[in-house]
C-alpha cells in the first residue's frame, strides 16, 4: 500500500489505515515544519498551486510545505481573474498544468472540480477545497490535532458547533471521525444543521450522531468542541445570514460544565465565535491546529510524490 501517485480528492478515498499512515508521517514532519531539521526530499520537484478561489491560509501552508522539503511551487492565485483561463474549461487548464509541475493542488468554486481534475491529470491532484464540497487536507489537519491532543482518535466524544450545513470541513470531519467510532453531538443555529445524508453516513460508517439544542449540555462529557464560522459567502439570501449572524459564541462561561481535558478547535479564520479570553488557556487548540497544517501537507506531498517522507 503506497500513496505514491495518489489523488487526494475526498476523505472517502482514504481507508483508516491510509489516514493513520498520513498522520504518522505528519508527526515525523513536525521538526522539519518547525525548521529544526531540514530535508531536500522534494528538491527538483514543482508543486502547482492552482487557486481559482481566494484562500490565503491553505495556499501558504502548501507553499511552506513544498519549500520546507526543498521543493518549488508555481502559484496561480485567484486564477479566475488572471489571463490564464480566458473562458477555458477546467478540463483544458488542468491538462496544461499537469505539464508544468509534478503535483497539482487545486482550490475551485465548483463542487467536484478536484475529481474532474484528478480524472484528467496524470499527476496527483490534491483537493484544497471545491466549493461547498470536500476539503480533505483540512480534515487531516483536524484529525492530526485531535490525535496529538489525546494520543488516539478512537472512541472520542466530539461536539460540532456552528454552520454545519455549509461548512464543508465538518462534513468530511464527521465522516472521518465516524471511521474511528466517535460519538458526535451537533449544535447549530436553526436551518444550519448537518445535512441528513452526512448524518446517515456517520451511522453507516460505525459512528454515533445526535443533534443537541443546548451547547452547555453537549459539551458536558465531550473531549473536543469543534467550532466553525458561518459560511457567509454560501448564503444565497443575505437576510437569512443576518438572522443567524452572531447567534453563537464560545467563552469561558459556556465551557464551565465541561471536563478539563476538553479542547476547542476551529479551522480559522474566526469571526467572533470564540472569545479571545480562551486563547491563553490550555483548551485553545486552534493555533496548534493552524500550525499542524504545514506538517500534514508536507506529509501529503511527500507521500504522493515520493511514496514516503524523510
Amino acid at each position: 500500500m503506497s500513496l505514491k501517485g495518489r489523488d487526494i480528492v475526498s476523505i472517502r478515498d482514504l481507508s483508516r489505515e491510509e489516514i493513520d499512515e498520513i498522520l504518522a508521517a505528519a508527526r515525523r514532519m513536525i521538526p522539519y515544519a518547525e525548521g529544526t531539521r531540514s530535508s531536500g526530499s522534494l528538491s527538483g520537484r514543482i508543486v502547482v498551486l492552482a487557486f481559482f478561489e481566494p484562500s490565503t491560509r491553505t495556499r501558504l501552508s502548501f507553499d511552506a510545505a513544498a519549500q520546507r522539503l526543498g521543493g518549488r511551487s508555481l502559484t496561480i492565485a485567484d486564477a479566475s481573474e488572471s489571463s490564464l483561463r480566458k473562458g477555458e474549461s477546467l478540463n483544458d487548464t488542468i491538462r496544461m498544468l499537469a505539464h508544468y509541475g509534478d503535483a497539482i493542488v487545486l482550490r475551485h468554486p465548483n463542487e467536484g472540480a478536484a475529481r474532474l481534475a484528478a480524472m484528467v491529470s496524470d499527476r496527483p491532484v490534491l483537493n484544497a477545497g471545491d466549493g461547498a464540497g470536500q476539503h480533505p487536507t483540512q480534515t487531516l489537519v483536524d484529525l492530526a490535532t485531535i490525535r496529538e491532543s489525546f494520543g488516539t482518535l478512537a472512541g472520542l466524544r466530539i461536539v460540532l458547533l456552528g454552520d454545519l450545513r455549509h461548512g464543508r470541513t465538518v462534513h468530511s470531519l464527521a465522516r472521518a471521525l465516524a471511521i474511528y467510532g466517535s460519538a458526535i453531538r451537533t449544535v447549530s443555529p436553526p436551518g444550519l444543521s448537518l445535512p441528513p445524508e452526512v448524518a446517515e453516513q456517520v451511522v453507516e460508517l460505525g459512528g454515533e450522531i445526535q443533534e443537541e439544542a443546548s451547547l452547555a449540555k453537549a459539551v458536558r462529557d465531550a473531549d473536543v468542541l469543534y467550532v466553525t464560522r458561518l459560511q457567509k459567502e454560501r448564503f444565497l439570501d443575505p437576510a437569512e445570514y443576518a438572522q443567524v449572524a452572531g447567534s453563537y459564541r464560545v467563552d469561558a462561561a459556556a465551557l464551565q460544565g465541561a471536563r478539563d481535558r476538553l479542547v476547542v478547535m476551529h479551522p480559522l479564520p474566526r469571526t467572533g465565535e470564540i472569545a479571545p479570553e480562551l486563547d491563553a488557556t490550555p483548551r485553545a487548540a486552534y493555533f496548534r491546529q493552524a500550525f499542524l497544517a504545514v506538517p500534514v501537507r508536507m506529509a501529503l506531498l511527500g507521500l504522493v510524490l515520493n511514496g514516503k517522507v524523510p
Partner: protein
Amino acid sequence: MGTVRELKIQPIRNGTVIDHIPNGRALDVLRILGLRALGSDSTVSVAIRVRSDKLGYKDIVKVENMELTARHLDALCLIAPSATISIIRDFKVRDKRVVDLPAAVTGILTCPNPSCISNVGEPIESEFEVARRRPVTLRCVYCERQVVDFLHHLRG
C-alpha cells in the same frame, strides 16, 4: 383476458415492447427513448392504466423498429424498475430482458447540484455511482451529491 385488452394496440412486426411500466410512467419512458430520434415509419403505441395481476395497473409502450441501447436500459431501471422488455421480430417475441441496476449511470441524469462541475459547461458527461440499492440512491461521482428522485433529474 389479456389478449382482449392487447387488441387495443396493433401488433408490431419488428420492435420492442416495454411492459409492466409502473402506472403513470409511460410518458417518462417515452422521454427516455427520445422519440425525436426515431424514424418516421415507426409507430409508437402507448397504453396507460392497463389492468395487471402483478401491479394492479400498469402502462405499456410499444415501439416499432427500435431496439433499446444500454443507456435506455439504465434509465428504465431508474424510473421503471419493474419493466420487462420483449424484443419482437416478425411478430414473435424473440428475446426478453429485465432491467438491472448498472454500477455507473452515465449521461442520463443531471446532477441536482447547480454548482456541480458537471453542470457548468465542462466537456464531460454526468456520472453517478450506486450509493445504496434499497431504496436506489445514486451519488454524483463529482460532487458526491445523492439523488433518489430520478424523474426530476432526467436529462433533456
